[in-house]
């Protein structure tokens, strides 16, 4: 008979090995799927690599996708660490972009050194407030945050669409429903051919690492995530911690919105979030909620997204295949957690061990 038993403290290296094995198994399972479709899995994966890293331009494109993924994951990480299931990053990105665009459209003609910091701040506030509402409801009445954050995504999309077709429609676009382009002062410049937002992403990875692992605030967030009762007993102000952390969580996503609107699209529209808010949920979880791991995982996922677009042109495999592959990886890694926490004990039938009674 097979029985499961709690695993002793596993070394970080062994746990990491299990997770990497899970990712490899996910690729293996996906190979089967690709094989059934009549393609050679190795060739397809090879093309994905070419599509993601095959030329300096492709590398720049991949990194351009990795920037919002990294930042959004850091934002989500702060919330997930508290077991606050913020799946509203998509909406927080849009509301951050909305607030930043408000600055861009009204003050865009001022110096870049004035406009960009203001947009950055506005992005943070826009995204932060959009996350504050579900956090406040959760604290006040224990309202389910998963559904509220998700519903706020749809409301944000409709709001931006409303602006696009209504008050913010560009009068110069000859009836085509689009919002005006930003003035040059409101556009994040490029550095090495990539929008300079990558500096922000790297900065936040480092900041988040220090915050989560070497600061009082990070410790408090971790304790609230482990047990709200313990946190209360230790005299922590749980409500304040949760609200602050969620403003930071949503605020970081809001900065993503600012960077995407300003550095990539040079305008505002409802599709600038491009599903980053959802993909980042996977990357956050895969990183084991560790900020430093977020960066390589985000680059891997950006590569899969870009590579997925490339295999569409080469093999006519729909781009959604990348999303299927990403969710397969998530399934396998979620499943592998079991083997980090438990071990299977094989024992003969009918050998009850009295010393192993209930705990």
């Amino acid at each position: 008979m097979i029985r499961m038993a709690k695993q002793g403290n596993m070394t970080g290296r062994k746990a990491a090995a299990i997770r990497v094995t899970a990712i490899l198994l996910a690729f293996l399972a996906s190979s089967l799927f690709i094989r059934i479709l009549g393609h050679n899995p190795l060739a397809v994966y090879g093309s994905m690599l070419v599509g993601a890293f095959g030329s300096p331009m492709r590398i720049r494109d991949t990194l351009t996708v990795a920037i919002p993924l990294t930042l959004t994951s850091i934002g989500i990480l702060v919330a997930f660490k508290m077991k606050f299931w913020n799946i509203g990053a998509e909406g927080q990105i849009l509301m951050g972009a909305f607030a930043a665009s408000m600055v861009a459209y009204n003050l865009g003609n001022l110096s870049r050194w004035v406009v960009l910091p203001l947009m950055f701040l506005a992005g943070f506030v826009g995204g932060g407030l959009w996350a504050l509402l579900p956090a406040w409801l959760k604290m006040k009445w224990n309202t389910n945050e998963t559904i509220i954050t998700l519903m706020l995504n749809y409301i944000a999309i409709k709001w931006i669409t409303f602006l696009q077709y209504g008050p913010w429609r560009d009068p110069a676009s000859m009836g085509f429903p689009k919002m005006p382009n930003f003035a040059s002062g409101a556009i994040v410049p490029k550095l090495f051919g990539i929008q300079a937002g990558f500096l922000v992403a790297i900065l936040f990875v480092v900041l988040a690492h220090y915050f989560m692992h070497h600061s009082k605030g990070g410790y408090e967030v971790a304790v609230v995530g482990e047990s709200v009762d313990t946190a209360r007993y230790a005299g922590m102000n749980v409500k304040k911690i949760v609200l602050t952390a969620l403003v930071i969580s949503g605020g970081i996503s809001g900065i993503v919105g600012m960077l995407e609107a300003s550095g990539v699209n040079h305008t505002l529209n409802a599709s600038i979030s491009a599903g980053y808010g959802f993909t980042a949920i996977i990357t956050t979880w895969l990183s084991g909620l560790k900020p430093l791991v977020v960066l390589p995982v985000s680059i891997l996922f950006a590569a899969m997204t870009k590579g997925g677009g490339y295999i569409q042109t080469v093999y006519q495999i729909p781009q959604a295949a990348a999303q299927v592959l990403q969710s397969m990886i998530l399934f396998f890694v979620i499943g592998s957690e079991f083997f980090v926490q438990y071990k299977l004990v094989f024992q003969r039938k009918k050998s009850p061990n009295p010393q192993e009674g209930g705990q």
Partner: protein
Amino acid sequence: MEGFWNIFQAFSVVLVIGGTPLLFATLGELLTEKAGHLNLGVEGMMLIGAVAGFAAGHFTGSPLLAMGGAFLAGGLGAMIYGFLTVTLRANQVVSGLALTMFGTGISSYLGVNFIGQKMSAEISAFFSPVAIPLLSSIPYVGRVFFRQDPMVYLGYVTVALLGTYLYRTRIGLNLRAVGENPGAADASGINVDLYKYVHIFLGGALCGLGGAYLSVVAVPQWQDGITAGRGWIAIALVIFAGWNPFKAILGAYLFGGLSIIGFYFGNYFSAWNISQNLIDMLPYAVTILVLTASSVRKSKEKGAPKALGVAYYREER
């Protein structure tokens, strides 16, 4: 005034059609949660069912196979979640989210070749409205509830069956015990894991039917992301209904109505200068309000299975 009444009646008829996919999904999630499992993969299972139903209908031309395929596919999708959360005791929230992403990806992947394609005339004919003798001649009620397509009637039947099953049968009682206190259920000889698996499967299958209702009956052509967030509204509706199948039907039709209100009463809104895009926010905004209201009333504690979202470890009993 007569003009308004006519519009209102037409609106009510479509409200039931708009509510039916929500009803199936809500009942499916309700059944899953009764087993103590919070499955946030509803949106994904609906999409899996929608694409499977459309494909089965498209290739076989059989309405029954279309719905059967959706039922099976939704259930199989749920089994991924079931394996992760029942056997591997994985985090239910993240497993459900992963299933939604998988369902979104796979439906968009498999649906690529169906984009813009319509269901065949034979299938649409099978699912065309049928008037129920006597009942359909009741003023208003007859036209709204008893001149609908067979799937709407299946919705009524499912509500009645589920209500009876949960509250009037021994297996239903056992199921509720599994969701309330799996340790006690286990001690009384109930096979906890089996109950969980079966009901996670059935729950996913119902979500699959909800998705297929959209792609095969209501729309009926393939669109990418055809469910448009209905799966999430269904999860909120379970809370709104206090885990009671009879209340779920009210919630489903209410939200079915909200999603089409702009289409039917657009003229009245534009008279007040309200944009269509703002009216489109209604179902989502009302979900937030309703969910908040139910959490204020603490109905959550009243109705939710006690062990909802908690993995059951026999060894840690």
